[in-house]
């Protein structure tokens, strides 16, 4: 595969971010885009010179790789169709709306012999990657207590699928899944969760603030805070890892190199996306890595099994919230 042809499924916010990312990937040609019936990919197609397809089948004929940036509830059907057509799949997080869907996506891709890569972009944020590298290098010993925070504002509504629990899975699936994956990456498999939620800012919407306690097979425990309960333009990310030989932490509030105090209204219409000035945006680094994986030049930093594990944790967190009980998390059998 000398030149990888990529097709985008979806033309919304994350599709725009990915399109910009693919533009920074040598050897990748973003060729086509398709979106849900009744919606037009014309703007994105025009901006990046893409073929605006009328159907997924039309797109599948034009590409080697399908990049799924559609709402979570359609990840499964798009991935399955792409895999059966022999196309590799990159899929936005969470991998699927339910663990069963994620399992089926993995099985279908395995049967079709195509690669499935979940876009857990947090693994490509430099502060998270550096902390993971420090843990792996043994700098702080074995992780004992991990704390992760992702605190921002509610994605704009009404009508946004992000806040539609049936489509996105809500806060635990859409936002906290980043940190469920990261907690598991640094402290190993999660065996149980206990969580609480509240509708803090919009009583008519679904839960916008969740606190979860995770128990890892290693014996480590993690505190994961996910929130849409802050006013725009807040997007705060924090991590703290206490290990047997030391500890490390970072906090976007403290490391932000710019602190603008401008006399202007905040723009609550924007979508929340964490950002810090960097030479290469993490989404671009992620897509460059995926391109290397697809060319067989690199082992994946994150696998579909990781994506399934994160979905299982999210589902357990929702179940714990719904039942008020601690929920066990089934282990993921890794077959790559």
């Amino acid at each position: 595969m000398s030149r990888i042809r990529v097709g985008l499924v979806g033309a919304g916010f994350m599709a725009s971010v990915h399109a910009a990312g693919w533009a920074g990937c040598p050897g990748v040609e973003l060729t086509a885009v398709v979106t849900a019936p009744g919606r037009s990919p014309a703007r994105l197609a025009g901006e990046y010179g893409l073929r605006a397809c009328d159907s997924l089948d039309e797109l599948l004929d034009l590409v080697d790789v399908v990049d799924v940036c559609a709402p979570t509830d359609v990840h499964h059907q798009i991935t399955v169709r792409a895999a059966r057509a022999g196309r590799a799949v990159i899929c936005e997080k969470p991998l699927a709306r339910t663990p069963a869907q994620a399992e089926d996506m993995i099985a279908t891709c395995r049967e079709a012999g195509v690669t499935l890569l979940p876009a857990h972009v947090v693994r490509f944020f430099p502060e998270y990657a550096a902390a993971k590298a420090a843990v792996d290098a043994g700098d702080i010993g074995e992780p004992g207590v991990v704390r992760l925070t992702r605190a921002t504002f509610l994605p704009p509504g009404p009508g946004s699928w992000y806040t539609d629990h049936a489509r996105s899975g809500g806060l635990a699936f859409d936002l906290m899944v980043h940190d469920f994956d990261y907690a598991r990456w640094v402290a190993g498999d999660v065996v149980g969760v206990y969580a609480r939620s509240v509708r803090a800012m919009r009583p008519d919407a679904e839960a916008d603030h969740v606190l979860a306690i995770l128990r890892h097979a290693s014996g480590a425990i993690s505190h994961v805070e996910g929130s849409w309960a802050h006013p725009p333009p807040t997007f705060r990310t924090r991590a703290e890892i206490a290990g047997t030989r030391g500890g490390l932490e970072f906090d976007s509030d403290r490391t932000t190199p710019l602190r603008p105090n401008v006399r202007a209204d905040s723009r609550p219409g924007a979508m929340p996306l964490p950002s810090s000035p960097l030479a290469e945006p993490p989404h671009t680094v992620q897509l460059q890595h995926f391109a290397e994986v697809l060319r067989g030049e690199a082992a994946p930093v994150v696998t579909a099994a990781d994506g399934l594990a994160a979905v299982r944790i999210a589902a357990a967190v929702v179940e714990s919230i719904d039942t008020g009980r601690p929920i066990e998390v089934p282990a993921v059998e890794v077959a790559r």
Partner: protein
Amino acid sequence: MRVAFLSSAHVHADAYVANFRAAGAEVVGVADDDAVRGATWAATHDVPWYSSAEELLDAGVDAVAVCSETAHHRRLVELAASAGVAVLCEKPLATTEADARAIVDSCARAAVPLMTAFPMRFSPPLREAAAMLADGTLGRLHACTGTNQSVLPTRHGAWFADAALAGGGAIMDHSVHLADVLRWYIGEDPVEVYAATNRVLHGDTVDVETGALLMLTYPDGVFATIDASWSRPDSYPTWGGLTVELVGEHGTVGVDAFGQHLTVYGGTSGPLAWPMWGSDANQAMIDEFVDAVRTGRTPAVTGEDGLAATLVALAAYRSAHSGQPVSLPS
């Protein structure tokens, strides 16, 4: 006003002795069942040494600060109460519910003031957040994330990690501060406590839990987490810290009770240090106790507050043991 220290086992006694003197009280003596520890502490702080608590109380005191190992609180408080002396008792109030209730009851029967040493009630940053709750700025409180993490406290005394003397480890040592802050903020006690604990950190040094995450649920659905872990490495720039983040109806607020510090590189305090420049919450707490004793009124923080926080910690142990949330009577 004449104040006596009943034991110097708890490291906070070191701070309180200066706080009492600054409040205008006379520190008339210290008694300690560990003669070497007590005599050393007496010499360091220029306090007369007594070989027994009874002898010290007989010398005539108005109030005592009980700073013993937690398991000995009950005996010393009952002794002070029967002598008709006001009591400031270090947290946690006791290692068992029976002892905590006996402490509250003995002081009530003797009609002596009893204050639990919860200095965070007097922290100006935490008081500002309390005011934001009280005046409606935040609206109804929905959720709280609390942390009270520290280095392993055994450098101040091995008993902190001795379950027989301390009642446990990180939960007993730390969760009570935030349990009390939440009681203050919410005005209620939790109806459910869940806790996950471990001994990954310092597992080869101590036999008690060093990692502890608690989830408290309150009657109207408000929930709060407490990280009570001894999770700061020995090389941390200070002993630890306490933070609270509140999510309310109208917004959110984060509070770092010990955030008002300098950052110092090198020099006598090591490669990195955070000396505090914020107000001393211990001093405000001691001022309140001294004033309450002088004027014969109930202190702003009571024995009941100490009992309530102890019950949360004890419930956390039951939950950590069973793996299930534990219900508390509302």
